[in-house]
């Protein structure tokens, strides 16, 4: 039993995690390609035309997954940041740092695809609606987290300051999620929820879920790739980094 515990803690060391992450990245790329391939095929060739929105509704297959990921990545980022803060584990803080740009990208794409969906269906690119505004705030929270971390020279202090911002910002995620219930919004309600059967065709649902899985795998691949660069940047003074075969002359 105790042996198992030690094995898990071993991966909290950047020196052990760096090669492990390198080995895992191709796996997540393959999974992303697989889910993405099937997801796109379902989205464009199997899912039927929508009765009211015609073919324009197909934006849902990218809009909903990017929106889900923007919220989900924020939660994961905040969890890593909290772990870095409470356990003083630097790899956890590096993970939070590695997730932020991908999360910000997802939030941006959620807003972008939302605008491209809003224009033909609502007649406007943007409206100060509760759902849209809270998602915009999420985007700014990501940017704020990244800017704050970049502005503090001492990495451990930057981790701590960033973690506080990330944790305070968590309150925004349920606000985004429930905004369509709490306020009268132009944005439609949840497409998929736990306590009622989804209000769409099965093929549409599967297309959306597979696209979400694809983005999920993509995000993991990105976070692992980025955390490897961050590890090298922040551990550049250590011997193990200088012993790496890619660094050795």
């Amino acid at each position, binding site marked *: 039993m105790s042996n198992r515990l030690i094995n898990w803690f071993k991966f909290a060391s950047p020196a052990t995690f760096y090669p492990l992450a390198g080995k895992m990245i191709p796996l997540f790329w393959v999974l992303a390609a697989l889910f993405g391939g099937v997801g796109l095929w379902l989205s464009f060739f199997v899912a039927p035309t929508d009765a009211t929105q015609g073919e324009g509704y*197909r934006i849902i297959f990218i809009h909903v997954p990017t929106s889900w990921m923007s919220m989900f990545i924020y939660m994961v980022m905040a969890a890593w940041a909290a772990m870095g803060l409470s356990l003083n584990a630097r790899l956890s803080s590096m993970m939070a740092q590695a997730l932020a740009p991908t999360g910000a990208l997802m939030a941006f794409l959620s807003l972008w695809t939302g605008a491209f969906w809003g224009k033909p269906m609502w007649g406007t690119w943007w409206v100060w609606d509760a759902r849209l505004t809270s998602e915009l705030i999420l985007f700014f929270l990501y940017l704020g987290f990244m800017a704050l971390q970049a502005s503090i020279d001492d990495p451990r202090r930057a981790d701590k300051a960033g973690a506080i911002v990330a944790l305070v910002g968590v309150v925004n995620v349920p606000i985004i999620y429930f905004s369509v219930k709490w306020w009268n919004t132009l944005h439609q309600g949840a497409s998929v929820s736990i306590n009622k059967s989804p209000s769409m065709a099965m093929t549409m649902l599967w297309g959306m879920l597979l696209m979400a899985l694809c983005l999920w795998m993509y995000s993991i691949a990105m976070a692992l*790739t*980025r955390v490897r660069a961050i590890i090298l940047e922040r551990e550049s003074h250590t011997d193990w980094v200088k012993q*790496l075969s890619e660094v050795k002359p």
Partner: protein
Amino acid sequence: MIWNSASDFFAMGGYGLYVWGSFGVCAVAFLVEPLLIAKRHKDIVRTLRRQVVAEKLEMENK
């Protein structure tokens, strides 16, 4: 089959601009992000290599 032809597919029932504007920008983003990270990785490895060489030279000159 939903689509009668390729142009039918690209027209997206009149919503082409919006559908391809959404998917296109996402595709570009998902291509550019890995490239940016690869560049970041390459940059730090180059810096580290220089450091190692510099340290070695310093040792030899002592």
